């Protein structure tokens, strides 16, 4: 802080500190504390506020733990978000490696220029695209029937399969980019040294490239999992009655049940899930927060 004042003077330092404080306190920390507090209060009519019923209680969380349906949805969300994360990792790791170490830099630049298009098209349109492709009368069924692979149209949008397809498509670039950045920072000489010393391709990847790209892998996994678990758009476009997502239940409480207190308890559970996942990834891959957020 003294360093700041010495360089930029007292008034500018105060302005910068005030802006940062406004951001961290008014937009990040206190709203989450309010959410936390709200989740322990009851939804009451105005005249009962401050009355004997206006107490701190675990009731909103008990609502969750008393509902097998909601618990099911919660774990289905975790499971399918994990599946999507793993699919994205397996598909993009080779691509990231090829782009960083095999392709010529100019070709890589062109490749990323083309990828800017899906990256900048909003996720709602990206999931809508799959809604059209997978719909019963859609192009996928027409194609499969056309080449004689299936006899009559398949209903794709049922269960979690369409949601998984949509989530992978919507968030796969968030896995590709950090892994690419990490591998690119690896000195190519190390890969060549490993090969010269007789290591197989697998061994080179396992012992040299993957350990080096761990921060990128961690970052990609955290981003993809968080975006999946918190996705509102993709499930609301591609889920069906037998595949509900946890965010849909939160929406129900907020918009249909109009019980913001239960809603905030559920939102807090989602937040806890993400915090647990981030810490787990940091522990397993042995990386720091600084490495993840790049």
């Amino acid at each position, binding site marked *: 802080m003294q360093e700041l004042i010495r360089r930029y003077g007292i008034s500018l330092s105060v302005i910068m500190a005030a802006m940062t404080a406004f951001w961290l306190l008014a937009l990040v920390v206190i709203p989450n504390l309010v959410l936390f507090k709200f989740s322990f209060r009851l939804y009451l009519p105005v005249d009962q506020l401050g009355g004997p019923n206006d107490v701190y209680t675990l009731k909103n969380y008990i609502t969750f733990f008393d509902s097998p349906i909601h618990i099911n949805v919660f774990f289905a969300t975790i499971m399918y978000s994990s599946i999507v994360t793993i699919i994205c990792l397996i598909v993009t790791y080779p691509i990231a490696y090829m782009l960083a170490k095999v392709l010529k830099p100019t070709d890589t630049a062109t490749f990323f220029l083309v990828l800017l*298009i899906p990256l900048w098209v909003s996720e709602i349109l990206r999931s809508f695209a799959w809604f*059209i492709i997978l719909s019963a009368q859609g192009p996928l069924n027409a194609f499969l029937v056309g080449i004689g692979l299936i006899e009559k149209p398949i209903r794709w949008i049922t269960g979690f399969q369409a949601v998984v397809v949509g989530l992978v498509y919507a968030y796969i670039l968030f896995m590709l980019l950090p892994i690419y950045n990490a591998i690119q920072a690896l000195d190519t000489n190390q890969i060549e040294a490993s090969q010269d010393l007789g290591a197989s391709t697998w061994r080179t990847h396992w012992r040299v490239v993957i350990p080096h790209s761990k921060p990128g892998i961690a970052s990609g996994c955290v981003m993809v999992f968080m*975006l999946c678990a918190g996705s509102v758009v993709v499930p609301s476009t591609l889920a069906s009655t037998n595949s509900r997502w946890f965010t849909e239940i939160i929406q129900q409480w907020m918009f249909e049940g109009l019980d913001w207190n239960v809603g905030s308890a559920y*939102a807090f559970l989602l937040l806890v899930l993400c915090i647990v996942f981030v810490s787990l990834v940091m522990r397993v891959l042995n990386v720091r927060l600084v490495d993840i*957020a790049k």
Partner: protein
Amino acid sequence: MNSQTFAKITVRVYLGLFIVYMLLPLAIMGGAGLNNTRFPSVYPWVGITDRWFIDLWNDQRMWGSIRNTTWVALAVVMISVPIGTAAAILLNSVKPKLRSVLYGFMVAPILTPGAVIGISTLLFWNSFGVSAGLYLSVLGQVSFVAAYVMLMVLARLQSFDPALEEAALDLGATHGQVIRRILVPHLYPAIIAGAVIAFFQSVENFNVTLFTRGNSDTLTVYVGSKIRSGITPTINALALLLIIVTVICAVIYEVLRRRAEKRAAALVAAED
């Protein structure tokens, strides 16, 4: 065929398939905006029509949502860029211990689901009597967009030589001059890039906006409600237009970037 050509072909095929996978769905979605069928689809292809574009043009709600989106995005840029820049400068000049704590709080919003940010913003400002509306959407979006700006400016600060500031101060520059003439010119590329990212993050945002918007529409919320309430190819027409705008922006961005790179290279060559 030796194993090296085989490997080369495998790489090309895999990367090619990935590009097709990323682009084909968008082409199908955009193409459906031109097809003259009631339900959006590219198959069967009935014929090219402009009726969905005309429907879209006449949709007042769509125009309102575009106005709102622009308004919100500009506000997000105006607030998050100064905050993110200030936070990065601050972070760069505090002691390591405080630095890592502050850093944790600053990147947390990036790792928080949008629904949680939206709901917590809504509850917090409601307790001051501010009801849901686009103002809250702006504040909610700023909370994580500022983090992106901060990260970009922070990265740029790594290549900044603090001795320049020392020299300026020794030579009698005021603190304001140090910022205006030395620090900001160095950070300029990161600030511009941060502003562009902030704008697009805001335009694309759905989750935070959904919970904070009140009754107002933004473009993404408009598209979302259209998809839920009976689909017509007007959404595909809109999607096609958005994709075209995106392509144009991507090309302009790339041309500018290459030009800047060339200029930088020429500068280095001239100095040698």
